[in-house]
């Protein structure tokens, strides 16, 4: 279905490409066996410890009609290795035939009338009934989206979704039929007078604002990224270090199937050796049977395992991510290793010597693995959604930038990109080749999260393998940085005080070629591009956009109760979001926000959930997830925000995205 059948392994919808309305979409007029179960659920005390605080107190479950066909697309990541639970890569392929014609209907309006019914842009509305047959007891122990509880079937059939998610129901307070307009009906929020009084007083409490003293789940998160000192065999500091080690919320380990340590985010070899041995034994034991180990739970900690050829990857998390989310993080680490070595080299090393110590060939790239890992631990919308963010620009402005790149293009160029602080400004590419978000994730991590390239202070020539493009060979990437705060004429002259400029301010020109000797040619192209962008005013526009930063939610929807949102356009594999300022500034607030998004995302993507709208109330926030064939949308408001105001805000945001679609997203990009 992709526009580029020859490009690479999967030219499916996880590429930047023309939104190709290939499958003539059967206009979804689905009504049907939709159910909605709504109820009140007071968060139980046991849930306080779990990061998914009080998730899903109120849920609207909308089931799709043809049960066999539709499944929410899984995170589109190249499926290089055996992931039995994902037989089709990516899941979205299955659904593509149902997607409405994207090009012809990009601006399906969500009018103010629609707000009252909250109909989907794909035209579906549905009637919603509350089957009385679903009893409370069925759902009793199911509210664990973050997989903090043991799930036997993970190791049995590899199902990463929770079959029961869609069955979740709560004591219904609403009888008979209704539609999603009921989401707007505040009556179902019927609360005690005392509660109402409290609410009305604090109408504008922000998410996570009320400090929850019982909630100790992220108490030490601020220390998460402190380094653990090396083991000092004489000093006997091991016990102390182990305490630090165990206090981490997140571990990533990589070892060879022979049990050699390859990478650990925390702790030096002496500290982790014991664990490596245990893990290797465990995995190998199950490997031998036909029943590989996918994950297990110990206390509040989830272990997820990902096996890629001779490599074992393990994520150990107390942050409540779903197995699918953790696995996609491990896959990203694997991609980083492939990016350094290429698949044939990796295979060769281990087929020659199963006992290979891979640390040597990977030398110098530990920082790339760690910055990737830390991005996941901090919480990254881009990683969660497997999508890219663009710098918001006018369509005409982007057009000029694209053309400047195209005009300066040299023969050796494969991909040309301008990126500002991890946000895409412009891409030019050959018609036949797509760019994979997973590849861009690796590049952005290298340039904007890890410090090595930037700190060099010059121009760079970097051999790297982009596994999504071709995992068998290297490409060569020219990189130079410009600062958004530097008005000098040339990037080379920029004042570079290392670390002084945040990643957000860095503008990078990336020119990728298959030719290892094309540095000077690409450097020349870069010089031409930059001087042309300066001449035609585009550089100032880019710098101004970078300096301006993301708008706040209130800029987008004045007066809204929403405090943050994520909007992912499925067709473009891109997302947009407002600034984390002012409500989610800093490590901890951002992690709590991402916990919330992780949970919403996990539920929406749970394998058999068919969940389309999810309204979730917890003690410190109210949130909404909304999934349609066109987009995924997640938003959050303070704990006292009414359902009506959230639905209203959500619709306003979606209207805004429709209006700004060609500014916040790169549609198609420029091809040559």
């Amino acid at each position: 279905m992709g526009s580029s059948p020859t490009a690479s392994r999967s030219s499916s919808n996880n590429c930047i490409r023309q939104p190709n309305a290939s499958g003539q979409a059967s206009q979804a007029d689905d009504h049907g066996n939709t159910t909605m179960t709504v109820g009140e659920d007071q968060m139980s005390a046991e849930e306080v410890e779990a990061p998914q605080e009080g998730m899903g107190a109120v849920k609207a479950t909308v089931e799709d009609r043809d049960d066999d066909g539709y499944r929410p697309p899984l995170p589109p990541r190249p499926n290089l290795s055996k992931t039995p639970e994902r037989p089709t890569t990516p899941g979205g392929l299955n659904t593509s035939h149902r997607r409405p014609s994207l090009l012809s209907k990009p601006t399906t309006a969500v009018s103010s009338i629609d707000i009252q019914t909250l109909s989907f842009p794909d035209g579906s509305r549905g009637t919603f009934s509350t089957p009385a047959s679903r009893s409370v007891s069925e759902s009793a122990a199911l509210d664990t989206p973050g997989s903090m509880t043991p799930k036997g079937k993970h190791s049995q059939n590899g199902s990463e979704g929770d079959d029961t998610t869609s069955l979740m129901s709560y004591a219904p307070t609403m009888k008979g039929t209704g539609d999603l307009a009921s989401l707007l009906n505040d009556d179902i929020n019927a609360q005690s007078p005392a509660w109402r009084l409290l609410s009305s007083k604090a109408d504008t409490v922000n998410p996570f604002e009320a400090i929850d003293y019982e909630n100790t789940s992220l108490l030490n998160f601020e220390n998460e990224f402190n380094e653990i000192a090396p083991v000092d065999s004489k000093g006997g500091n091991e016990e102390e270090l182990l305490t630090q080690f165990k206090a981490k919320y997140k571990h990533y380990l990589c070892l060879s199937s022979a049990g050699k340590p390859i990478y650990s985010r925390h702790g030096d070899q002496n500290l982790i050796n014991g664990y490596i041995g245990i893990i290797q034994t465990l995995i190998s034991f199950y490997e031998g049977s036909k029943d590989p180990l996918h994950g297990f739970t110990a206390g509040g900690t989830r272990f997820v395992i990902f096996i890629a050829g001779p490599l074992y990857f393990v994520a150990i998390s107390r942050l409540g991510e779903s197995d699918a989310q953790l696995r996609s993080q491990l896959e990203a680490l694997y991609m980083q290793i492939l990016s350094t070595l290429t698949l044939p080299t990796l295979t060769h090393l281990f087929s020659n010597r199963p006992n290979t110590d891979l640390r040597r060939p990977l030398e110098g790239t530990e920082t790339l693995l760690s910055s990737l890992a830390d991005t996941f631990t901090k919480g990254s919308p881009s990683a969660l959604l497997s999508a890219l963010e663009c710098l918001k620009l006018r369509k005409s402005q982007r057009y000029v930038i694209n053309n400047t790149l195209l005009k300066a293009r040299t023969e050796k160029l494969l991909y040309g990109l301008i990126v500002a602080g991890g946000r895409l400004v412009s891409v030019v590419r050959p018609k036949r080749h797509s760019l994979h978000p997973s590849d861009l994730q690796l590049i952005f991590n290298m340039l904007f999260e890890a410090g090595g390239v930037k700190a060099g202070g010059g121009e760079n020539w970097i051999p790297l393998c982009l596994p999504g493009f071709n995992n068998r060979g290297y490409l060569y990437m020219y990189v130079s940085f410009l600062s958004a705060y530097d008005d000098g004429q040339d990037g080379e002259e920029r004042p570079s005080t290392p670390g002084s400029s945040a990643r957000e301010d860095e503008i990078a020109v990336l020119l990728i070629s298959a030719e290892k000797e094309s540095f000077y040619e690409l450097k020349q192209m870069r010089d031409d591009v930059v001087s042309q962008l300066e001449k035609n005013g585009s550089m100032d526009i880019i710098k101004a956009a970078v300096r301006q930063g993301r708008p706040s939610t209130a800029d987008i929807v004045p007066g809204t109760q929403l405090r943050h949102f994520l909007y992912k356009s499925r067709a473009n594999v891109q997302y947009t979001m407002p600034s984390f300022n002012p409500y989610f500034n800093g490590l901890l607030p951002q992690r709590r926000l991402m916990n919330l998004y992780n949970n919403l995302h996990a539920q929406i993507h749970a394998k058999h959930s068919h969940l389309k709208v999810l309204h979730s109330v917890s003690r410190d926030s109210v949130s909404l997830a909304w999934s349609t064939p066109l987009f995924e949308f997640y938003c959050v408001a303070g704990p006292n925000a009414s359902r009506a105001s959230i639905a209203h805000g959500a619709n306003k945001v979606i209207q805004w995205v429709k209006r700004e679609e060609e500014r916040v997203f790169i549609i198609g990009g420029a091809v040559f």
Partner: protein
Amino acid sequence: MAARGPGSRAGNSRFAQFKLVLLGESAVGKSSLVLRFVKDQFDDYRESTIGAAFLTQTISLDDSTTVKFEIWDTAGQERYKSLAPMYYRNANCAVVVYDITQASSLDKAKAWVKELQRQANENIIIALAGNKLDLVTEQPDKRAIPAADAEAYAREAGLLFFETSAKTSENVKELFTAIAKKLPLDQAGPRNPRSGPRAGVDLRPEAPGTQGAGACSC
């Protein structure tokens, strides 16, 4: 080179452009030496170089002579080994770096010198730099390679030799100045004010025999 227009000699000033490559085991301080030389900065916790970095720095030898270095700072890792010839192939000069507190790093440096002498430009000027001098100034017992040994080797192999510290900047400027002085400035081209950072030296092999002032248009 194509990128350079016809130049004009401003007074009696001479301008020469040379390609310099840094080689040596990883973590000996190549990038740190370059950063000290180019930006006069030092970073206690710097991450490994990924691929190679290209920087330029211009120094004045005297009132009338300016030398511009185009510097390739390579990553020392084994997996990049096959790319090294690309960087030293047309180099006019090379700095081979070792860490005076790590005995094995000198062996690696010697291997690089050998490779350069065999494969690189015949007239390439090579300097050997024993880096992290500041460490042994503080704690003399940290020294793993006596200066005299390295110096003897350098003399024998026909190399310039300095012990340097990127951290304190000791001998860094001296190292690059000594190289500049040894380069064949007579062949240096006229200064071209417009050349600036745009001037590029082709990475492909030059016609045999050309060397010196970076294949100028003169």
